């Protein structure tokens, strides 16, 4: 049964314009779609093709392209296959449409992406901070936020000076390469 459905889905997807479609294997399909067509495609997948489970929404920051890539992973319990719908939106201003009315779990993922990437979803029920409620810096998952620089600025490290090290330093030895230097 699932094979027939797969063929049906392949035909369906190849017919739609502005959709690039790539079947990885019998359970994985990658679809690239323009940002304007994505909600309609998801609606189609959910309503017509039984992809009712939103597994995840992933955001990837392609800073060199000035774009955010959003990946919607939807799963069908019937055909037992997973469609990953990829779309790209400009990094600035970073606003996109929520799919909460199609998939309720989207609320969490969109909220997460909002606080980690600063990407705003219009129509999402809840854009309040969740994890980073006490964080005042920029959205940390953006590639232009340098976590290590932040750490070096705000924290210091334990300065060990055990006896054996003092002895070695007296003999002319001592620390040569600190771990932070090799990274």
């Amino acid at each position, binding site marked *: 049964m699932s094979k027939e459905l797969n063929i049906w889905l392949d035909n369906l997807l190849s017919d739609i314009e502005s959709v690039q479609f790539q079947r990885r294997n019998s359970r994985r399909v990658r679809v690239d779609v323009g940002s304007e067509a994505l909600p309609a495609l998801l609606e189609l997948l959910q309503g017509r093709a039984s992809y009712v489970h939103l597994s995840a929404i992933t955001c990837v920051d392609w800073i060199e392209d000035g774009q955010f890539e959003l990946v919607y992973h939807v799963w069908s319990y019937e055909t037992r296959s997973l469609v990953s719908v990829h779309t790209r939106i400009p990094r600035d201003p970073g606003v996109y449409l929520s799919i909460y009315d199609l998939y309720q779990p989207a609320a969490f993922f969109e909220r997460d992406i909002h606080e980690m990437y600063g990407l705003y979803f219009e129509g999402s029920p809840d854009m309040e901070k969740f994890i980073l409620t*006490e964080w005042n810096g920029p959205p940390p998952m953006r590639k232009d936020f340098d*976590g290590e620089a932040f750490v070096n600025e705000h924290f210091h490290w334990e300065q060990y000076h055990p006896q054996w090290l003092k002895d070695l330093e007296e003999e002319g030895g001592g620390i040569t390469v600190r771990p932070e230097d090799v990274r």
Partner: protein
Amino acid sequence: MSNELENIPIRQELEVLQSGQKRTNPLANVFDGLVKFCRSRSMFMLHYCTGCGAIELPPAMTSRFDMERLGIQPMVTPRQADILLITGYVSIKTLKRIILTYEQMGSPKYVIGICSCTVNGGMYWQSYATAKVLRDYLPVDVYIAGCMPRPEAVISGLRELMEDISSGRAESWKKYYQHYDYYLGNQQKLFGEDWQTPTDIIAEARHYDLMTEHTLGEHTALLEKHQKPLEALEMRLSVKDKQKV
């Protein structure tokens, strides 16, 4: 910065206190010893899982390794707890709660730092979200190495603490009052200048007669400056009326 702290001399009289001040009444000495013994054998551990090391506490508490043999048992409120176990990394958000909790615990109180993360950042040394060196923010009595330490190691650490308590060496809680300015300074650096807690540590330090020249300083002055009517540390969330979908 932690080196800074080591350079500050501990007040002379306190050293006398720590080394067991001679009391005139011989019964008092016996009584002091008894108190120390009892303290070391009835440690209530605050039930707060701050990090991943907490996963080894249930085995340590339950039948297999059975901490209750040592008189250690979990306690749910800070007011009645003696030991605060920092089980691993502390995110900045948790650190605030830890400090609140610590300040609410009644003296004498003991802090145990478990895992690598409490010492020098551990696995998460690159992370923007975790505090790295715990002893900048709180005085620590005993550290237990491991990532995470096995229940046996945890119990060894607790036994070490018991020994310290009965011999009168575990005095870190006094350090907090004596060097409050230092700890507060580090806390302010991390949480912002307007950081304050509901507990008035300076008044408590006066109460315990633990004021030193390091209790007050520029950071406590900053605290006074920013003082505002007390409110509980707020969860910055709004509760909406939501209908069951």
